């Protein structure tokens, strides 16, 4: 598992694929959500247009160094999370830079982006940004607990912390997936997944009207462009972790695209139906429904 120079181009390739897939998948999901509202929905390439427009904007302002670095932290968090987790099982090409750390690294690297973004938003001086961040952090403590419990249950079940070993243990047929061998853990994890995807039941952080899109309210032009690239990569990267842990990982790219789409659909499916939770409601919801599942998962593994 040592580092070879060839891994860099392979990683960039994975990155390229995932960015584009993310853009398209994002637009597709928006279209699906629109169709639920009997609207036609945005064109599939809309994300590209928005991205290029934002990169193309000629002026921008900055509130200070930390404000300037916020999006950089955010995007490097997304890219890092993607690269630290092997996307395609079995292929040396697409095991990215996962030699650097195992499941724990992925679990904690999620916070790298969040922290950076929070600091950037803080520097903007906008009260709405701070309110958004405080809601986001408050919600994430409750949302992360079931996921951590699920991850721990899986680690206990397979007696390993390295993602490739976990995926290896789930090969050979659908019945070997963690979904079926440890359903409680997967249930807890999926509930936690809803909380982390910023979709309506739990999107009080980016509430568009109440606090104009929360933390990124002061971000624009190229900063926003970086964030949009991250919004393309980060969900996919998170879903890759879920896929590897709970849904048997992907041996080939088509399987990868299918599974990612299905997992993403879960959050969209729930998102379009439910109204928005307040922070204490979402915390209570997680502690009442998701955490017991996680605890059972640990005890019964």
């Amino acid at each position, binding site marked *: 598992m040592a580092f070879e120079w060839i891994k860099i181009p392979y990683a960039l390739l994975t990155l390229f694929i995932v960015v584009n897939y993310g853009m398209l998948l994002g637009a597709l999901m928006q279209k699906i959500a629109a169709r639920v*509202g009997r609207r*036609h929905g945005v064109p599939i390439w809309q994300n590209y247009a*928005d991205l*290029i*427009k934002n990169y*193309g904007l000629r*002026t921008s302002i900055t509130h200070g160094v930390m404000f300037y670095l916020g999006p950089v932290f955010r995007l490097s968090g997304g890219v890092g999370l993607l690269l630290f987790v092997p996307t395609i099982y079995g292929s040396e090409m697409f095991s990215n830079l996962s030699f650097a750390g195992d499941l724990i690294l992925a679990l904690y690297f999620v916070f790298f982006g969040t922290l950076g973004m929070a600091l950037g938003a803080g520097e903007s001086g906008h009260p709405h940004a701070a309110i958004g961040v405080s809601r986001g952090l408050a919600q994430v403590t409750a949302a992360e607990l079931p996921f951590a419990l699920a991850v721990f249950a899986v680690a206990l079940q397979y007696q390993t912390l390295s993602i490739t070993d976990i995926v290896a243990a789930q090969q050979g047929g659908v019945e070997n997936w963690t979904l079926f061998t440890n359903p409680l853990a997967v249930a807890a994890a999926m509930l936690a997944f809803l909380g982390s995807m910023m979709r309506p039941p739990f999107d009080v952080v980016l509430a568009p009207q109440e606090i104009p899109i929360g933390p990124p309210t002061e971000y624009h032009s190229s900063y926003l462009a970086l964030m949009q690239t991250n919004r393309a990569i980060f969900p996919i990267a998170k879903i890759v972790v879920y896929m590897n842990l709970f849904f048997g990982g992907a041996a080939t790219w088509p399987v990868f695209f299918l599974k990612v789409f299905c997992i993403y659909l879960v959050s969209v499916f729930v998102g379009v139906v439910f109204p928005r939770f307040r922070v204490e409601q979402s915390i209570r919801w997680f502690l009442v429904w998701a955490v017991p599942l996680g605890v059972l998962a640990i005890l019964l593994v």
Partner: protein
Amino acid sequence: MKRDPMHFIKPELMPRKVKGPDGVEFEVEPLRDYFCDAPPTVQHGAYLKIVEDFFNWARAQSLWILGFGTGCGAIEMRPLMTPRFDAYRYGIQWRPTARQANLLVISGYLSTKTLKRAIRAYEQMQNPKYVVGLGSCTINGGMYWDSYNTIKCLDQYLPVDLYITGCMPRPEALLQGFEDLKKLIRAGQAEGANRYAENFTWYKANQKQVIHDWDMPDYNW
């Protein structure tokens, strides 16, 4: 500063003496300390025409409107978000903050008080930015042509790229208007921001002539 009714400054913006934690007294000048007063500058497009056209295509395709309804036209903009007219299909989206918007729609009559807010919102948007005026009120004052506190000709205060006529144009007209705007953008003629920067003093003079309690820097970043 005697309280001249014409140039009234709110107390929180008046310069004041403040004592620091180490006991040193110093003067705080809010208008100078809290706000950046750099003037806007003309921004040239990309060097290569092909790149600029490409960017213009992207700008046209993703028109982010600032949620800033002033007059009666705002009610016409709501249906665009509904399934029936669905502006999203054309890449049009509403953004709550001026930073991220690039299209300001002045939807109807504009009182001097609202003009001050409109100017601030316009100036907080990033170059290139476009202004669309709805209805006759923005063209020549419309039915308020002789009112003492409405803006008769929007063009003197903000660089307007497109007017959509109608005493209040229906959503279809709006969509058509936006299509025309897209053509302008794609053609590269929607350089309102640069026009504003070039004759910035003229615009500013007109604005100050109408807005009396001018207690903000010339260009609101």
